[in-house]
């Protein structure tokens, strides 16, 4: 509401400048009237529901001396009447998109760099929701009949392409997107999924993304986004997630929740310029918001309902800190109230947190993660928030891993064939699982694999081999469910969805699929054909595991959109590497060569044909004879001899006219010498 008022006052001042003084009063009255009317109208149609915006920032130290910064902005638009809708906070572009293409759910992510599952964790909500494959990933669920889904998808890609300055429109072609049935999301009807692994992500994609925020990057937490520092990081992923809430009908538009997140992994500068790496190998760098972003938080975005900064210490880190604490001073407080956690001597926060939460853990492990909340509302320009973390003692921990670590790679060499292999290796989590389930013999680990392969990689799905613990196993033994739609040349990519049942005491598992490398038409090669072609990342998820984080039992954090998101049970999933397949590339000058050689052949053919058609035998002989009669002189004799030889014909004896021939030959030799002399002179003086 405040925003609207601000705008109308601007209008008023502008109109005041333009209008004569006498009219001023009337105009103001009119405007105020209108304003009041509209507010009343809104108030009457929608009950208390209003558009909301909130901003949050989660900071988290990572084990490999880096810091994760996760910005979360959420805009909500409640259900409303279909037309005449005015948005206060919610971006109009997005609401139009949702309305026009009847998008039920959509997610678009731009990512640069890889999420390192081994170091940065693979089990928490951030890694399963915000770790994305490099490039662009887009999926959308439509609320339209099955037959119109493809058309909606195509239009949506074009609209998004314009909105985000990216080549998302390349996802329009049916060879680039796929319709996964169950492996990508459990209940997906009208889902389309497409990726552009090669899309470069930069500020031109961030700016339109920021435009969707009511404060852009002028105030609030988004003001921290100093371009050089956020793009200097090791991972950068901006994501946009749309969900339509409530059923839409003719009269009422569905409500929309727009969730915008930016996840960056940054290297604190103190380590970057550090002199000796070996000595500091174990010590964590100390950092502050100003040292990693180069800016401080100068207050909240005034339009935001809530604006908070959180600092999260992971389970592993907290456990490690507790151990250290126990060692240093045998503390008697083993149960550790959350407030006491502050008094640890191992680190120091530059700002006192407003609240401290401890994770509510269902698994009853010995340590739980801890969250500090800092409310931005208290801070302003003169007193900015600059949260800093200083480590006093070296501490080493590791993040919680997904049950298996998946890596995918190409096998074979050469331009003819190859194989895709997915290698699964257990992590600590599944080892723990093994121990806990040692009594239960029938323990199984279910793994969901979803893989899209472009059509020019001709995968032979019958060659699927599964190796469990380095022993070949029949596919039927391991597979619970499989769905394959083979690729069609130039029409659709190959999609493979499957659920594997792996034994718990797994040492390693490998999947192997062979393929032939296809040929493209010369027009279908991209400009950088020699770089190779990408196979998009495969998605490995674990249906039995859900990543969720619940911090408070009393629901004090439920108001925070980010943490309500974290509390949702989301599938633990990870992306594998993108693969680069070198294909046979033609010599692109080949068309030119072909044209040249064809022309030559045609010229030769028609030339000789014409020659044959035109000449008559008698004429030729007469011509030769007359020539022979005229020819005299040694040189000409030689020439005629040679030509006769070439023709395979005995030379006719010539009438010997020695006197005349010698004079002729003299002349000829003289001429030749003259020309040669001139040529040499020319060469010498002017050449």
């Amino acid at each position, binding site marked *: 509401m405040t925003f609207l008022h601000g705008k109308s006052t601007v209008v008023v001042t502008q109109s005041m400048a333009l209008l004569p003084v006498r009219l001023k009063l009337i105009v103001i009255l009119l405007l105020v009237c209108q304003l009041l009317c509209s507010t009343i109208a809104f108030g009457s149609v929608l009950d208390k529901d209003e558009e909301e915006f909130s901003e949050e920032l989660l900071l988290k130290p990572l084990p490999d001396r880096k810091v994760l910064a996760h910005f979360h902005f959420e805009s909500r638009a409640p259900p409303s009447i279909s037309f005449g809708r005015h948005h206060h906070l919610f971006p109009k572009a997005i609401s139009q998109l949702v309305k026009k293409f009847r998008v039920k759910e959509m997610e678009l992510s731009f990512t*640069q760099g890889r999420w390192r599952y081994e170091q940065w964790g693979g089990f928490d909500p951030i890694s399963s929701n915000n770790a994305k494959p490099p490039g662009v990933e887009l999926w959308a669920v439509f609320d339209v009949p099955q037959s119109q889904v493809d058309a909606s998808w195509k239009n949506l890609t074009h609209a998004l392409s314009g909105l985000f300055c990216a080549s998302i429109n390349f996802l329009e072609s049916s060879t680039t997107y796929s319709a996964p049935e169950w492996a990508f999301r459990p209940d997906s009807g009208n889902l389309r999924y497409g990726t552009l692994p090669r899309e470069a992500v930069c500020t031109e994609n961030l700016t339109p993304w920021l435009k969707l925020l009511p404060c852009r990057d002028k105030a609030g937490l988004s003001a921290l986004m100093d371009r050089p520092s956020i793009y200097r990081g090791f991972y950068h992923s901006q994501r946009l997630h749309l969900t339509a809430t409530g059923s839409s009908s003719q009269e009422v538009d569905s409500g929309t929740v727009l969730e915008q997140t930016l996840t960056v992994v940054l290297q604190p500068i103190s380590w970057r310029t550090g002199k000796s790496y*070996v000595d500091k190998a174990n010590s964590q760098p100390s950092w502050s918001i100003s040292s990693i972003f180069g800016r401080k938080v100068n207050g909240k975005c005034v339009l935001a309902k809530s604006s908070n900064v959180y600092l999260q210490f992971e389970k592993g880190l907290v456990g490690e800190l507790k151990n250290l604490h126990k060692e240093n001073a045998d503390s008697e407080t083993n149960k550790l109230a959350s407030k006491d956690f502050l008094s640890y001597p191992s680190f120091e926060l530059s700002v006192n947190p407003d609240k401290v939460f401890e994770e509510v853990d269902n698994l009853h492990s010995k340590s739980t993660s801890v969250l500090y909340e800092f409310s931005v509302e208290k801070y302003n320009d003169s007193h900015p928030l600059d949260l800093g973390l200083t480590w006093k003692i070296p501490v080493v921990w590791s993040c919680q891993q997904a049950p298996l670590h998946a*890596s995918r790679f190409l096998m074979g060499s050469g331009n003819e064939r190859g194989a895709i292999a997915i290698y699964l290796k257990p992590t600590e989590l599944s080892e723990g699982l093994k121990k806990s389930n040692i009594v239960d013999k029938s323990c199984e680990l279910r793994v969901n694999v979803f893989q899209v392969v472009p059509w020019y990689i001709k995968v032979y799905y019958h060659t699927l081999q599964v190796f469990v613990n380095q022993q070949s196993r029949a596919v039927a033994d391991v597979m619970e469910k499989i769905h394959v739609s083979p690729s069609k040349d130039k029409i659709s990519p190959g999609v493979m969805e499957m659920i594997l049942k792996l034994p718990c005491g797994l040492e390693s598992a490998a999947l192997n699929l062979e393929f032939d490398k296809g040929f493209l038409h010369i027009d279908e090669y991209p400009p950088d054909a020699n770089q*190779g072609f990408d196979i998009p990342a495969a998605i490995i998820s674990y249906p039995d595991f859900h990543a969720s984080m619940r911090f408070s039992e009393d629901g004090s954090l439920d108001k925070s959109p980010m943490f309500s998101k974290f509390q949702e049970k989301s599938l633990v999933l990870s992306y594998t590497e993108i693969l680069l397949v*070198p294909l046979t590339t033609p010599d692109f000058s080949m068309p030119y060569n072909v044209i040249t050689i064809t022309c030559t052949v045609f010229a030769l053919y028609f030339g000789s044909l014409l020659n044959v058609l035109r000449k008559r035998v008698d004429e030729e002989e007469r011509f030769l004879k007359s020539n022979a009669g005229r020819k005299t002189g040694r040189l000409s004799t030689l020439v005629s001899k040679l030509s006769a030889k070439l023709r395979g014909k005995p030379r006719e004896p010539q009438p010997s006219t020695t006197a005349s021939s010698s004079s002729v030959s003299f002349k000829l030799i003289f001429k030749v010498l003259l020309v040669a002399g001139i040529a040499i002179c020319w060469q010498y003086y002017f050449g």
Partner: protein
Amino acid sequence: MAETETKNVTSRMRQRPIVRLGILLISHSILVSIICCTAGVLALLLLPVLAKNSYISENALMPGSASSMLSYQDVLEANKLVRDISSLSSKPSGVAIESRGIIAQYMSDLGAEVNYHKFHPHLNEFHPLHFFSSPGSEVIQDNFSCSLYGVNTVGIIRAPRGDGKEAIVLVTPYDSVRGGVGEALSLGIAYSVFSLLARVTWLAKDIIWLVADSQYGEYAPVTAWLRDYHTPVFGDLGSLNSEMCDNNNNIYKLKENSIQERNISYTFKRAGTMAAALVLKVAYTNEQFEDTLSIYAEASNGQMPNLDLINIVNYLAVHKQGLRVKVEKFWSLLESQWLRFLGEIFESLGKLAKSLNPDWKFGISPSDYVEGTATLASSLYYQALGVPTGCHGAFRDYQVDAITLEISPKVSFNNKDRRSDFLLLGGRLIEGVIRSVNNLLEKFHQSFFLYLLTSPGKFVSVGVYMIAFALIVAPLPVVAASLYADSNDLNTASKKDKKSSNSDELGASLKSWKWLNSAKRVFVVHLWGAIVSLLPYFISQIRDCTPTTNFLIWISLSMLILLILHQILGSPYFHVCELKPQEGEWALLKSVTISSLFIGLSLMSVINFATAEIGALLLVPISLMVHPLKHDIKARSLRSFSRVICNLVLGVISFPPATFILLKGVFEGFDGLNAGDFWNWVESLWAWNSATYLYIDAKCFDTTASEIRNL
């Protein structure tokens, strides 16, 4: 009667000009073959003159456009590593494990992912049909012993914002037991670059540093690692990298910090498609006058890396680091007088041409010419041999461009500053090359793959050197055709004299199929060749044999098989269709041999040019000169006598063992030669799956085919 004859002549006259030209060439085949062969040899000798200056073809490479970031800080760290490593070598036991641990520790301190890779040295095995097949996963024997394995240390830096699709490989062979200062220094250089690359933000491709355990040779660890990288075996036999033979390492592992241990594992780690590989070595010999850099590029079967890779190394080494770059050459050729003389002739010719038109610049100084020829000769030789000149050859088997850089420092490293300077120099060079390759968007494809080097900055491209080969080979089909025509004429003439007209029809039909008889003979000789070339596989199965005895067994077995085949060939079964040995038969046999040789050479030139070129140089003269000895001896003229001598000399020279011994004699002196050497040489050839091996045998029996018959 006379009129009908002239009619015939005129009807023949109506043939197409191209046919007439062909007939002309065939009728003057001797002249043509002499001209073509001379021109071919001349063209080959002209190649150093015609060499072009190399240039960087791929624009994206941009070598040297960024200033070097490697600082003394990195070098100091590297120096520490070198000190740690060299201090280890004084201790007697456990050096291998400990040095490995140190290197892995240094790598993981930089934030790299480190893993060990265990391998069994791939024993030299002869697979008769493996010559042209791509390197596949080979089944590992069950009966390997735990004592015989090597461990590579691999460190991977993930590019901060890269997508991990591509990688650049840096290889430093390191033998922990026998490794000298040179190897420690090469580790130092690689480490300094690695530590820099761990921090930089511009990296787009992952960096793999492979410390290859070279206690079983340099080639074996790299091949083993590449094989596991590209074609791992998931089945039960491929479990080499797991816990087997692990007891050795626990000693060191216990000492390790528990945190570091987590980073260093035996799981094989990968990093995308390889864009290029650099093998770095330091030759620590105190004989250099300045810092030099040697580039080795030849991979198996005469494959070469893309010329751009050599170009950027050359560019950076010369223009940025001030190193003297050289490629391998035959030093013995440098002193040869006749080459110098030839060079002078070419120089004067070049000067003459320049005086006529200043735009014609093909004169080079005689010393340049001699040097170029020496380099060209070694380039040809190593390509022809088909044996890689270093462990970069293993990469080429997987279509990865790779070269070996061998840096030789000027002085000894008693002075610490001097050592740091050297590390900085080498490090900056490697950094520049990696940065340049990192810039690359596509794989190397712009520049040449088929070339011969005449100096680090000059090359002869395929379009030029093929001319020489084509000229040498050109007379073969001409001579074959003329011989065929001659033998036909001769036969008809003799028939007309002797036979009555009623057997004429039969004779005519037989006559046209006569060449089949000769083809059969040639085939049988080739068959013999194939059997003989497979023999070493069986001979090598016999244990406890010296090379000399092996060689002798080989020879005797070959002779035996020849006798058997001769008996079969001589048996009446094979002579059913042959009426009577005739005068012109040797000509027909020769023509078939020559045409098979022509086909063989042309095919080989596509696969490995250098082998075909050298083969052509050796084989073409003899196959053209060959003439039945009986006839020559009967003729008793000076001409035929000289021909006999020529034939015998050429026949001996082009017989592979003789060629080998002669070449060895020329380059290394004749003393200390024995027959075993040839066996060793052959053994090395098949160990590298060199196609040359097959080819040599084919060649050998090609020549003998005609010889045998003629004797």
